[in-house]
């Protein structure tokens, strides 16, 4: 049975950028221009989960993204790796969303899309790391949700999920439609093949403004927040590392042991 899947993909600043380039200015995170945005890594895992199901079972994947001035060659990666359609909730009004206003807008857009069996989200986004949006969408839509999945399979209208728990995993079954948040153990997103890239470049995403999903600008983005950001800051680290030297790496290793003894750590 071919199934309809929706994958929520968020554009975030590259979390792999060296820590030193993350600078807070005026309650906002600023990064140098050469740090390019990426799709949030867990969302990439989510996309991979959907692609594997599509390969095995068949189906349609719609990637869904929210933001403003989304970088096309970043966000269209979903199309390049095999998503069938890309819908962008893209408008100034969507800027500075929190978990609530993000989930609310995404859920409203998903209702407009209408046909869905499986919704995938990353377990959390690499910018605010809140880990709420996926489960929030499920609550708003009133569908079941399973979080932190490391494997997802669809058989006979049911989803079988390996959900990561402390010291192991659970195998959980749930009927469609359902929402699943995905973790990195599921595996990296495949690389985009040239053919996919070329096809993606020719395809234009569907862009929806708040009004297109029946929302007022006051219900989305900064205006629709439930939380107030009081302060964004970077704690100062005082720690200073003492480098233990030696004439050879082996000697340095031995000196480290001696040092730990001297420092009474042993």
């Amino acid at each position, binding site marked *: 049975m071919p199934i309809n899947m929706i994958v929520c993909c968020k554009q975030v600043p590259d979390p792999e950028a060296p820590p030193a380039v993350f600078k807070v200015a005026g309650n906002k995170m600023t990064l140098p221009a050469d740090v390019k945005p990426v799709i949030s890594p867990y969302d990439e895992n989510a996309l991979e989960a959907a692609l594997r199901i599509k390969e095995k079972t068949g189906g349609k994947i719609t990637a869904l993204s929210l933001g403003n001035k989304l970088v096309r060659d970043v966000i269209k990666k979903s199309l390049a790796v095999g998503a069938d359609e890309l819908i962008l909730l893209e408008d100034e009004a969507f800027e500075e969303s929190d978990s609530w206003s993000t989930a609310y807008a995404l859920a409203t857009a998903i209702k407009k899309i209408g046909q869905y069996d499986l919704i995938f989200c990353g377990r959390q986004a690499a910018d605010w*790391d809140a880990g709420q949006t996926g489960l929030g969408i499920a609550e708003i839509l009133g569908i079941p949700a399973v979080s932190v999945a490391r494997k997802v399979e669809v058989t006979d209208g049911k989803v079988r999920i390996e959900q990561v728990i402390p010291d192991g995993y659970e195998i959980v079954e749930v009927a469609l439609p359902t929402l699943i948040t995905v973790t990195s*153990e599921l595996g990296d997103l495949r690389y985009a093949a040239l053919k996919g890239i070329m096809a993606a470049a020719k395809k234009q995403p569907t862009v929806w403004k708040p009004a297109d999903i029946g929302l007022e600008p006051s219900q989305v983005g900064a205006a629709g927040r*439930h939380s107030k950001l009081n302060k964004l800051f970077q704690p100062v*680290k005082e720690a200073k590392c003492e480098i233990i030297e030696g004439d050879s*790496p082996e000697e340095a290793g031995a000196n480290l042991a001696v040092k730990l003894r001297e420092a009474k750590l042993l």
Partner: protein
Amino acid sequence: MAENKGILVYGELAGGKLASITTELLGCGRKLADDLKEDLSCLLVSDTVGEASKEAIAFGADRVYTVEDASLKQYQADSYMQVAEKLAKELSPRAILMGQTSIGRDLAPRLAFRLGVDLATDCLELSIDPEAKLLMRTRPVYGGNAQATFSSELMPQITTVRTKAMSPMERDDSRKGEVIPTKVEIDASKIRTKIVETIKEEVAGIKLEDAPVIVTGGRGVGGPEPFKTTLKELADILHGAVGATRPPADNGWVPSAMHIGLTGKIVAPDIYIAVAVSGASQHVAGCSGSKNIIAINKDPEANIFKEAKFGVVGKYEEVVPAFTNKLKEILAG
């Protein structure tokens, strides 16, 4: 609707006793409640709660609500949500504190969206704004590259707290408190997920969370083998456990239960030895509470040296065996 008052800790049990995160939540909840001059309650949900309710009082709760039902033996979102939603509505606390555990991560967002209120996850610091009496909730963002303080006027203010971020109170069994058994009818028809099987990937030896010493290998270790040999030998000498950063877990070099970091385990041992670990913020988030971080890395510019107290610049293949041998010598006296 009644005015929201008091702090409610959503407690978790481990092996029939109060989980350590719950004692931490009670410790922090106590302070907040005292600042507000309001009460601290604790909710315990299981098939049988037993003595844990008394423990909760000893660790600071004024009232303990116990919900017992055979169907609540194992956490399932759809059953636990029925309890959490009902109690949150009935008790209308000012704030609900949960652990940033696998239960808290799963339950808190659902509850917040069900109630239409705000949630701040994975918080490191909580305080009461004296004027607005709002909870100021500070949490790491951008993979630990910054922190942010959030507040919300929507009640209850739901918050999950990172493990080991707060200190429990000294246990005081003479403390007085009230245990209130509460009945919640669990509607089985609303449970939409089914747990087919639970598979434990036990890691032999000391549990990471309890180990006083942890030896962690990063991507730079190069493969699964050193985790079983070089790193394990070092950990064994120090009676510690072996951990890993995310890439070794994602690559299947080690079970994911060994992953330490923002989305893995949060640890705070006395000695944390990071071997061939670059020190990405997402990893540091999981070990920054350690008392002494020691870094061994061939790249002198690796970020982990910014976190460490002591460091050696060199190939771990050369440094670690020599380090282990010298330790053997020293510890043998």
